[in-house]
C-alpha cells in the first residue's frame, strides 16, 4: 500500500482521507455521523467504507439501539498506523517544498 515507504495510495483519495481522519479522532463513530461529517450519501460512504474495510483500515459493527438499527465504525490499528505514516509523508513533502523555496528565495529577489 505504501509508496516512498510511507505514502499510502488508498489515502491519496481525499474522501477516504477525510473518513479516516474523522475516525482517527474518535474511539467509535456512528455511520450517520461520519456520513454527515464528510457530506456523503449513504451508498457513497458504504462504498468507501467497504474499500477501507478490505484494506483492514476500518471495521464495522452492526447492532440495535432499542429497535433502531445502528452501524458503528472504528479505525483499526492498521488504519491508524497508515494514517500516521501518510501524514508524516505529506508533512515531509510540504517541508521539502518549503525548504527548497527558502533556498531559492534570495536568488529570485528583485
Amino acid at each position, binding site marked *: 500500500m505504501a*509508496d516512498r515507504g510511507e505514502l499510502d495510495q488508498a489515502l491519496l483519495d*481525499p474522501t477516504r*482521507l477525510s473518513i479516516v481522519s474523522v475516525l482517527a479522532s*474518535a*474511539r467509535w463513530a456512528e455511520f450517520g455521523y461520519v456520513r454527515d461529517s464528510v457530506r456523503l450519501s449513504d451508498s457513497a460512504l458504504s462504498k468507501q467504507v467497504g474499500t477501507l474495510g478490505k484494506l483492514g483500515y476500518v471495521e464495522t459493527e452492526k*447492532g440495535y439501539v432499542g429497535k433502531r438499527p445502528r452501524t458503528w465504525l472504528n479505525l483499526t490499528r492498521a488504519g491508524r498506523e497508515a494514517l500516521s505514516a501518510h*501524514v508524516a509523508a*505529506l508533512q515531509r*513533502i*510540504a517541508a521539502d517544498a518549503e525548504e527548497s523555496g527558502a533556498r531559492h528565495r534570495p536568488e529570485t529577489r528583485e
Partner: protein
Amino acid sequence: MGSQPSPEEAAEALQEVTERRQQAAGPDAHPKWTLWVVGALAIGVGVASDLRPDLGTSLLYVLAAAALLLTYLPRSKRLGSAMGYRRSPDPRPVGMPARARALRLVVFLALIALVAVASVLLRTWDVPYPATIGSAAVVATMPLWHRLLRRAAHGPRAVRRG
C-alpha cells in the same frame, strides 16, 4: 491526486486532516441535554448544601457518581448511542495531544480552585446561600469554560505554516 502529490496537494490534505481532527474534538461531541443535566446538578447541589449542610458528604457522592456515569457510559457504543452520542466523546490520543489533555486538566482544576476560594470568601463575609451563589456563578459562566475546554481539546495542526 496522482501517486505523488504536489506540495500544494500535500498541504491541502494536511489541512483536511487538521480540520477533521478539530471537528472530532469540537463541542458537539456531547448531546445538549448533558449540559442541562450538569447545570441543573450543579445548582441542585449548591442549593441542597445551603439548605441541608448535613447532607454535604452524600451530595458529594451523588456528584461523583453522576460525573462517573456521564464520563464512562458514553464510552460504550450502544449506551453512548442510546444517550444521544453519535461518536465517542473521548477523543483518541491522536485527536487530543498530551499538551491539550494537560491544559484541559488545568482548566478543570482552576474551576474547582475558583469555586473553593469563592465559597470560603462568601462564608467569611457571611453572605447568605454561598453554595447556591457559587454554583449559579459556575453555571452562568459555563459557556466560558466550555470555550476554554474546546480550545484545549483541539488537536495539533497537521500543517505548519511558514
